[in-house]
């Protein structure tokens, strides 16, 4: 027992590990909640593209402000929101299919980012940090920014819950209810963009889509209503973030990859066992619960 406790407590004596764990937990939670809509609306490719499109913005910030990491967040935020609105506007106006537009924007922006970073001397190391994250380099200033914006995302998702539900389930209904559907759609795209920027340092752009999609998809296999799906996704995302970071510490794995692998592992386990075992079990539990209430 003390061994387990030691295993858990030992890394916490390093303040960079404490900051990393907090960051991984926050990213896991926020991405999973936003990701529930990404999964339900089939926007995984959009999320992936958005993450990759951050690279040129971050690269410019990196070339301009050099070592000052705090500035990268704001450069990322600017690029992320710009790209989200840009993809939204282009795919509405153009005669091309949305995934084609996303593909063009995504690859173009990503190439621009790689080209910009390749002009710097410490090219390989820095590119790797942007691509795969560097959670142990998170400063307490970064942590505050993540908490602030992560909290804001959760607050807005809570505030616009019923409108986002209509937007995701039946946009046509939203129009007949005279809701500002275009505005709501853009708001959701921006929230996804901000979640991606908040997660940039923890998992990096290349693996970002997993944080958006995997915990939410796992939760969708186990739940039957959206609030429960979001809550469970947040729990899965947050704990996978923390567990992944521990594994990365003990087995010297790249932290972003380790976190994503834990998410994937949990998903596979649920996929293997849930449909046949957990789900009918949950349903029978619920059914007997209702009877109990009535009698």
């Amino acid at each position, binding site marked *: 027992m003390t061994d387990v406790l030691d295993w858990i407590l030992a890394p916490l004596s390093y303040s960079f590990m404490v900051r990393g764990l907090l960051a991984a937990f926050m990213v896991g939670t926020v991405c999973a909640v936003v990701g529930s809509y990404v999964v339900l609306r089939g926007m995984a490719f959009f999320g992936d593209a958005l993450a990759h499109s951050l690279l040129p913005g971050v690269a410019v910030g990196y070339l301009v402000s050099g070592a000052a990491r705090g500035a990268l967040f704001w450069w990322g935020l600017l690029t992320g929101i710009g790209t989200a609105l840009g993809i939204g506007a282009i795919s509405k106006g153009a005669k091309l299919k949305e995934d084609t537009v996303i593909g063009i924007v995504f690859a173009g922006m990503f190439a621009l980012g790689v080209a910009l970073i390749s002009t710097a001397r410490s090219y390989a190391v820095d590119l790797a940090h942007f691509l795969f994250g560097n959670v142990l380099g998170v400063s307490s200033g970064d942590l505050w920014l993540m908490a602030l914006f992560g909290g804001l995302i959760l607050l807005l998702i809570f505030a616009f819950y019923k409108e986002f*539900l*209509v937007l995701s389930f039946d946009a*046509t209904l939203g129009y007949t209810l*005279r809701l500002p559907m275009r505005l709501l759609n853009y708001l959701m795209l921006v929230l996804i963009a901000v979640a991606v920027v908040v997660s940039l340092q923890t998992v990096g752009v290349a693996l970002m889509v997993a944080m958006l999609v995997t915990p939410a998809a796992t939760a969708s296999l186990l739940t039957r209503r959206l609030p429960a*799906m979001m809550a469970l996704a947040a729990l899965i995302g947050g704990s996978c973030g923390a567990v992944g970071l521990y594994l990365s510490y003990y087995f010297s794995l790249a932290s972003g990859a380790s976190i994503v692998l834990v998410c994937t592992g949990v998903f596979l386990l649920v996929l293997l066992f849930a449909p046949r075992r957990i789900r009918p079990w949950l349903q029978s539990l619920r059914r007997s619960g209702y009877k109990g209430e009535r009698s």
Partner: protein
Amino acid sequence: MAPKHLHPKNVPHDVNAPILKLAEVCLNYDANAALEGLSFQLKTGERVAVVGPNGAGKSTLFQVIAGILPPSRGDIHIYGHRPGRHLCIAYVPQRTQVDWTFPVNVTDVVMMGRVGKLGLLRYPGRVDWDFVRSCLEALSIADLAKRQIAQLSGGQQQRMMIARALAQEAELMLMDEPLTGLDVRSQGDILDVMDVLRGRGVTVMVATHDLDLAARRFDRVMLLNRRVFGFGPPEEVFTQARLAAAYGGSLERLGRQDDKERS
């Protein structure tokens, strides 16, 4: 039964004007006309079937009436006002357009109809829950309130969507192929539901492929293929000449196509 209007309407109704009036409405997609010169009025509480071949513009017409698609030319008036801000029009989508794996139950879906009246940053209160309950009861699906939508039968799915339109307090319901793909018994149930709606003064427009049902169960029928080929009592509209004009050469094939869809 809860009060008919729990919240004030966004748009005042001129009760002397017809519930729906179209004047020379046209809609163009690119250079192609999807709807041409549509002019007609509906009477409050009547039940109209819109029939026509595939691609005749039935769904497009509904979207124009609901204010989802703006017409290229012409005027639409709901109780004397443009449809832009009316909450009293409901569009009941074809069942194939709905994601039935979405994690919501029947009450969640019907409550969505209340979202427009609730307004931003407000959560449903007891009046809304009671109202949703009464809508479920009106459609005889109160026992399915907590049922996952994936577990509903076709007829139950359709009734849930109509309950949602009731929760919206719709006075004009536009139903896109509500009878397609249902067995005969469920079709009968939905037609009975339409009698309930008539009792509440709800005006109903139904898009359907089924000429026979349209002739038997509707007050008036509209023969549509981009433009109106006839609008009136079924016996006046469903003449050999008019049907041939609307369907072109495809009328003989139509019978077989209907059989296929029903099976």
